[in-house]
């Protein structure tokens, strides 16, 4: 089996993406598809270039204010709760199944309720996102804290390490791969939550708001422009988390050897 060179790792997916774009452009032109149904990539690009201030304003409203605020609130809350639960075995046994169950629920359904509670602005979006990311983060952090094998824990005990010391030097680092795993899930959930919550009411800016209103007046190129922005944002956030993971958990088997 040949090994993959860095060039190949980049060239194939990028080439595939470009191929799709070219076929799309040709297809739209050849078949004369109405721009209200499917605009050509060039038209989408033109729409993006023509409305940068609007896209920027929507991005700040939805991603920075809604998604990122919710993301840090939810993750921080999950971290605090996880550290508390971790100290009490009874709580751990009781909350783990409940949290696991909640993590599988369509929590995004809370969006209309959060809008009712916190109003139309970004606070309600951040609240939806915080609740959505809380359970996957909690489950992953708790799973990570339990990932240390008993031998290592015993070793820490023979060193006379306190709970906090064990946490800082052994269990914390060991939990990091799980935390990053949770963060990867959480970033994509955060964008979904922030956008869906805007369907239930928002000030006159935001990506979800823009998508619904522009769709309503068949300005499909603008909808696609927002999709491109959200796709790039989602991928960039994921890449950011993966990049930090690579630097912080360089010692983990999954990060070595590639």
């Amino acid at each position, binding site marked *: 089996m040949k090994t993959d060179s860095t060039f190949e790792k980049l060239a194939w997916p990028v080439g595939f*993406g470009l191929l799709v774009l070219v076929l799309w452009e040709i297809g739209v032109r050849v078949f004369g598809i109405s721009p209200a149904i*499917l605009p050509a990539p060039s038209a989408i690009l033109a729409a993006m270039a023509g409305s940068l201030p609007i896209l920027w304003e929507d991005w700040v409203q939805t991603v920075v204010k809604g998604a990122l605020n919710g993301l840090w609130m939810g993750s921080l809350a999950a971290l605090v709760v996880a550290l508390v639960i971790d100290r009490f075995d009874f709580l751990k046994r009781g909350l783990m199944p*409940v949290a696991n169950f909640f993590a599988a629920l369509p929590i995004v359904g809370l969006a209309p*309720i959060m809008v009712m509670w916190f109003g139309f602005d970004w606070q309600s979006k951040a609240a939806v996102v915080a609740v959505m990311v809380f359970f996957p983060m909690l489950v992953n952090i708790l799973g990570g804290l339990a990932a240390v094998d008993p031998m290592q824990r015993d070793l820490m005990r023979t060193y006379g390490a306190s709970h906090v010391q064990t946490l800082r030097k052994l269990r914390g680092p060991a939990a990091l791969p799980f935390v990053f795993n949770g963060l990867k899930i959480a970033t*994509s959930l955060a964008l979904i939550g922030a956008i869906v919550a805007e*369907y239930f009411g928002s000030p006159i800016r935001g990506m979800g708001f823009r998508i619904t209103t522009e769709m309503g007046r068949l300005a499909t190129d603008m*909808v696609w422009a927002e999709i491109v922005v959200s796709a790039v944002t989602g991928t960039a956030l994921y890449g950011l988390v993966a990049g930090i993971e690579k630097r912080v958990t360089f010692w983990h088997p999954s990060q070595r050897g590639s």
Partner: protein
Amino acid sequence: MNKIVPVLTVLAVLIVIWYAAAVKMNSTWTFDQAERAGTEVSFSELVTDTMSQTRPLLPAPHQIATELWKTTVEKKITSKRSMIYQGSITLKTTLLGFGFGIVIGIALATVIVLSRVGRLTLMPWAIISQTIPIVALAPIIVVLSNAAGTGTLMVPKAIIAAYLSFYPVLVSMVKGLSSPDQMQLDLLKTYGASQRDVFWKLRLPSSMPYFFASLKVSVAAAFVGAVVAELSTSAIAGLGARMLIGSQFGEPMIMWAALFAAAILAAILIFLVGGFEKLARYMMGGRAV
């Protein structure tokens, strides 16, 4: 079985907190009403009133239970207000999307495992696909499938559900199909087995445990996808649509009932698929866990 007591304790505590929060959050309205009427509210009056408002900020658990009972058992199944009717539509979307998701997941995994170019090309895009917020794409999917002449909302909703549910299957199947080690592959080579034989007789059977393990995650994702689809395609039927309607008409009880119906349905689905997974593992000669 040492989990039951702690789980029940945690649930009981959650319910107590819920009641307390309901009293606290709904009290504003009660005090407001009392002030307008020029009366004082005693604590017991406060508690009874906050438990029985028709448009509470946070309904008490028993109110939701009553609402659910009314909309499931006491309503005819054919009624638009029946949660069973709405749930069945969401369920249909979920299962359709789940089915699509499994097929797409397995197909992509097969390409990825069998071809080096396929792996290099598709794997990054599969990961990227999950970082794109599907809700942004939802209106476009509706428009495109309408243009393709599908007619109903069911197809776009199922596509959205499939978009979320194919990924767990894909990841597990890639792992599973590449789980046979070099020794086993070499053995088949000495038998003179063709690529096809290796796939059908070695790779596919050894991927099955991975496949069944991914189903539970996948069905949960499909369900979330179905609800998200109903929320974001302005559907008129389904549990997500009930949430929309409750929000638009200012009827919080409908929202809460739909939310809980969704939670119960998700629980049933995950339980059933989990049972199926155990059964499959047992039939394949694994230990019943």
